[in-house]
């Protein structure tokens, strides 16, 4: 009886401290299974409108180091053939050697090399992006959307990041017009802590 009188309040105190209840540090896998992950691209059509599309298949993870945020890490691997702009003929064309050349370059990868925290919930994530066989450093503007326990016994964190790429930098030189030389990539993912 005495035991419980001590143990229960002790547990309550321990569990209510940030160390147990609200510490978001750790490694998170993108929620591929539950499909709480999106990679969108946005490119100008003729300078008149935006064309949006998705990469439907990708995996990734990130590590949050609370004490040393600059040691946090992100990596993602995208199946280029999963590009989907809701138009079969266009998707086939985008997979061809005019654009992504998916049979030659089936994956695109991002591997962070440095993270600079810019605000309470914002950071600049620099990393090596490999697309179409070309690796270039890119910087993602990232925002942490939220984190915490989920209702099913897990722990989750959501991130959204974006960057703008020049297609020609990655050897994609098909001329789509002067307004369409760059493409914005938007990555919005939920990670499940491992």
């Amino acid at each position: 009886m005495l035991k419980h009188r001590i143990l229960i309040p002790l547990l309550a105190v321990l569990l209510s401290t940030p160390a147990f209840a609200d510490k978001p540090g750790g490694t998170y896998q993108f929620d591929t299974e539950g499909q709480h992950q999106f990679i969108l691209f946005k490119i100008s059509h003729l300078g008149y409108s935006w064309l949006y599309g998705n990469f439907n298949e990708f995996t990734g993870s990130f590590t949050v180091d609370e004490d040393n945020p600059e040691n946090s890490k992100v990596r993602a691997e995208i199946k280029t053939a999963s590009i989907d702009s809701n138009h079969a003929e266009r998707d086939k064309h985008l997979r061809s050697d005019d654009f992504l050349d998916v049979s030659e370059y089936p994956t695109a990868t991002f591997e962070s090399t440095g993270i600079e925290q810019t605000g309470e919930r914002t950071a600049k994530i620099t990393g090596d992006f490999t697309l179409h066989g070309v690796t270039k450093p890119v910087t993602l503007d990232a925002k942490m959307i939220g984190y915490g326990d989920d209702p099913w016994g897990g722990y989750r964190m959501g991130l959204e990041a974006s960057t703008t790429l020049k297609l020609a930098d990655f050897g994609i030189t098909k001329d789509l017009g002067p307004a369409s030389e760059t493409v914005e990539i938007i990555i919005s993912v939920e990670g499940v802590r491992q």
Partner: protein
Amino acid sequence: MKLRNDKARYGWVAIGLHWLVALAVFGLFGLGLYMVELGYYDPWYQSAPDLHRGVGLTLLAVALIRLAWRALSPPPAPPGDHHRWEKTGARLAHWGLLVLLFAAMISGYLISTADGSGIDVFGLFEVPSVTGRQNGLEDSAGLVHYWSTWALVVLAGLHGLAALKHHFIDRDATLKRMLRP
């Protein structure tokens, strides 16, 4: 005006359909090779594929009519002076052409309709998708379309060369009976 085929000769319907299909096959092949190389700002960038899809689906209708006509009015027997191997070869080639023609047309249709959308035929009507949205179907159908169309024109070329061989070397009536009844 002799429309129907008889035991020895083709009628005008079979002759007309034969050359119409030949024209469409080579026309579509050339148009297909041309349109995929067009630049994004080329005035033909949209109209060339529109024409390709419209003619392709029209050809599907023509090819079905041709099959129906073949059943209604069977083609004449091969000329009697052909060797046995020539008859066998011709028979294989004719069936090969038919299979490749349908493979080419159906795979082309499947590329355009793999996202569930229909194909507009010259602004007159729309042929709907039968598959609905199928991820990746455009790629597998694209592969079949590419190779079946190449095989079709190569085999059609051999078929034409064989006709010329009968005309100029064997000096028989094979080619002439496909020109007039």
